[in-house]
């Protein structure tokens, strides 16, 4: 196993585990307000200090892990659910279908992601699951593009002709013949999107359009800590650092996984 995949799995695995176990391992209640413990710097009791309401930053961070991961993964699932079929159809049918789907994707891509997220959320009251859908929606075009380019190349392969020569249905060809071969680049792209989605989700929460107080989303934590950054920098630093670590970890996994997932890469031996 390549080193980067190991390192990535270690980082992501640890974070996921911590997030899952958060309610049991958190040293303090994450949402109990206590005016006597406001702005305490990191100490033996409060490892990462406390925030403006006297809540333990470490406990909030651990609970927030779940929100951030859920945001990243569910948003990416949304963009995969729409982007993959769109890309498959555009790459396989070509011509007018391709133009229509891909030009629509271009329009979507022309709008800055944060604006698009804002647009979706501004018209309705914000909630976490809606943020996830909005973020997923924003990242449909890149997923569709990657799927399309792989499909374009695969559609010319003779095994697709062979499938047509035994009268396979179009959906069989798209999802059973082409899709399994499209996974390696898609997984890399999707892992990249998970990180983007976490960042965008946090950004939206930061702007007050995602998770609502008192929940402890990382973006929301940074947003709330913003006013006290000169007095208590640890409140903003901890979630920022955690986010950074998670993004790096997921990227390492995505890159390392590509090599493992493609059987052809493993088989390649020197040329004659």
């Amino acid at each position, binding site marked *: 196993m390549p080193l980067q995949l190991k390192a990535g799995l270690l980082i992501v695995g640890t974070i996921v585990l911590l997030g899952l176990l958060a309610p049991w391992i958190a040293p303090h209640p994450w949402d109990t307000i206590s005016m006597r413990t406001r702005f305490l710097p990191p100490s033996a009791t409060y490892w990462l200090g406390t925030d403006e309401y006297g809540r333990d930053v470490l406990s909030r961070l651990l609970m927030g892990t779940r929100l951030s991961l859920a945001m990243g993964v569910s948003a990416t699932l949304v963009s995969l659910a729409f982007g993959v079929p769109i890309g498959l159809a555009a790459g396989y049918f070509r011509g007018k279908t391709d133009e229509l789907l891909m030009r629509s994707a271009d329009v979507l891509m022309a709008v800055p992601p944060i604006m698009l997220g804002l647009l979706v959320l501004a018209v309705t009251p914000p909630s976490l699951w809606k943020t996830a859908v909005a973020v997923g929606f924003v990242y449909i075009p890149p997923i569709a593009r990657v799927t399309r380019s792989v499909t374009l190349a695969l559609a010319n392969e*003779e095994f697709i*002709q062979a499938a047509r*020569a*035994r*009268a396979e249905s179009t959906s069989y060809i798209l999802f059973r013949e082409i899709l399994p071969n499209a996974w390696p680049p898609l997984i890399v792209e999707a892992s990249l999107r998970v990180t983007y989605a976490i960042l965008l989700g946090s950004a939206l929460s930061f702007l007050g359009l995602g998770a609502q107080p008192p929940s402890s989303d990382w973006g929301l934590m940074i947003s709330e800590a913003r006013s006290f950054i000169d007095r208590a920098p640890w409140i903003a630093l901890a979630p920022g650092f955690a986010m950074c670590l998670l993004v790096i970890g997921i990227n390492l996994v995505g890159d390392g996984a590509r090599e493992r997932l493609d059987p052809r890469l*493993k*088989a390649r*031996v020197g040329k*004659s």
Partner: protein
Amino acid sequence: MLAIEDLTVRYRTPGGAVEALSSVSLKVRTGSTLAVVGESGSGKSTVALAAMALLPPEAQTPSGRVLFDGTDVLKLDAQRRRRLRGSRIALVFQDPFSVLNPSLRIAEQVGEGLVYHRGFSDERALSRAIELLDEVGIANPRAVARAYPHELSGGMRQRALIAGALAAEPELLILDEPTTALDVTIEAQILDLLEDLQARRGLTMLFISHNLGVVRRIADDIAVLYAGQVVEEGATERILQAPVHPYTKGLLAAIPRLGRGRTRLASIPGRLPDLRAPPAGCRFAPRCPFAVAASALPQELRHVGDRNVRCCRAQELVATAWPVQDEAASGTLRAVLSPSEPILRVDGLSKTFTLTRGFGALSFEGWRPVMRPVRVKAVDEVAIEIAPGEVLGLVGESGSGKTTLGRAILRLIEPDRGSIRIAGEAVSGKPQKALVPMRRAAQIVFQNPDSSLNPRKTVRELVGRPIERFRLAPSGEVPGRVRALLDLVRLPAHYADRYPHQMSGGEKQRVGIARALATEPRFIVCDEPVSALDVSVQAAIVNLLADLRDRLGVAYLFISHDISVVAHIADRIAVMYRGRIVETGPAEEVMRAPRDPYTITLLSAVPTVDGPPLGKRARDEIAQR
């Protein structure tokens, strides 16, 4: 002039170091041509790269020297190597379609070396480039000099590349499969040109090829490479007439010959040894019918008569021929052809491709814009008929429309016009959904074994899917059917669990054939089924297809650019040229007395390994006498 001494080359790969060449020694005498012959994986391209000191960074040379005129090329620094390459040694690559830079004019690429190495001015380089283009037989060299590569045909590009290689007046010309990507008629022209240059310039050449017929026309000496070792070396005619090493014997026996009619070809069983851990003894022993206990010991190149052979039994095998297993002698098991309705009847089939559409088709007539799309008639009013159990060989060069025809018959490409009937059922004019019965009766085998099998499916899934798709057996019986099909194409049952990348090219092609047979078809389009395979493997696949026809009574449309392969399996031959069938007839008749001028050209262009030499040099000699 060039001497390779004890050269070992290893490539570092993720799976371990692969030994591409093991202690190879070769000598090219000044003014002569040495051909290095071998199949894929033999290390022949590595020889060319080593001679040019162009080995990639992942290559290591634990031993050996490459002496050019006494200096070791491998030890030179980058600067000196570059000077040597451009001026005294030149290389012509295999694929003229990818070697030329598409955004530079031909003259710039031909004259590049002159400007760089000789300090020619641009004008002088241009005029010299035009002279060179003229010398390599390009008509209207001035116009070609100004053209871009995409405006030239494959043959013209290869000529331009040779002109570029000759520009710096090299003493040694290295040609790595220079004609493999070209059609036979073009190949014949390029070989004529090379013979001509040999005679006129006294060039020394190192010629790398897998094609013994081509080599015969051009080389004085041959070195046969197998699994990174020279197994036999000597004078060309001697080796071709009386091969001594078993591998050379097998290779020569496996080559389909014109004028042999429908016989089974000899084939070499097995595959190359794993070069990550090359066997200590004879590397050919596992595939060799003559192997004895002593074959397991390291083999030395030893002198046998007029050549060197790496085989401990060389002396006793001099007069022994490669054994031809006459499995299922042709004709005996043939299903009796009844004069019933043809399995395939095609009439007036046409397909035109539009190459440029939209703005690409826009051109100007004076100031007036007109739409003038470029159209190519790929298939033009074609009519063919195939009886049940009959093999129709379809021969043509690249671009003749043979693949389009094969796919249009199965409606994988929608034809513009014409009627198609398969097994008595009209196929043309029906919607794709109504074609399911036809798709079961008619199948297809593809050219490229790497592309025709889905890399993410096991052999069991690949071969079993058609059975499930057409519900030919209850799901419990599918594994048994798959095993029977693998047995039919002579693959062991445990191959069912393999993925395509775990098999060799020939084995993949067998899986492709098994998949086509899974629907119990009565007609199969074989689209260049052996073109991507080595000669020794090609023979086995052609034999297999012939056996299957005899046992199952399947009819084939056997498409190939190689008329000698077609002649071995086809009952009738149809010759295709620019979208039209120019000649059809019984195979023997077409081969013996071709009527159409194009068929005659095609037949005379095929390089052969026996019979009278067909080369220009030889023709001239005959004319002089």
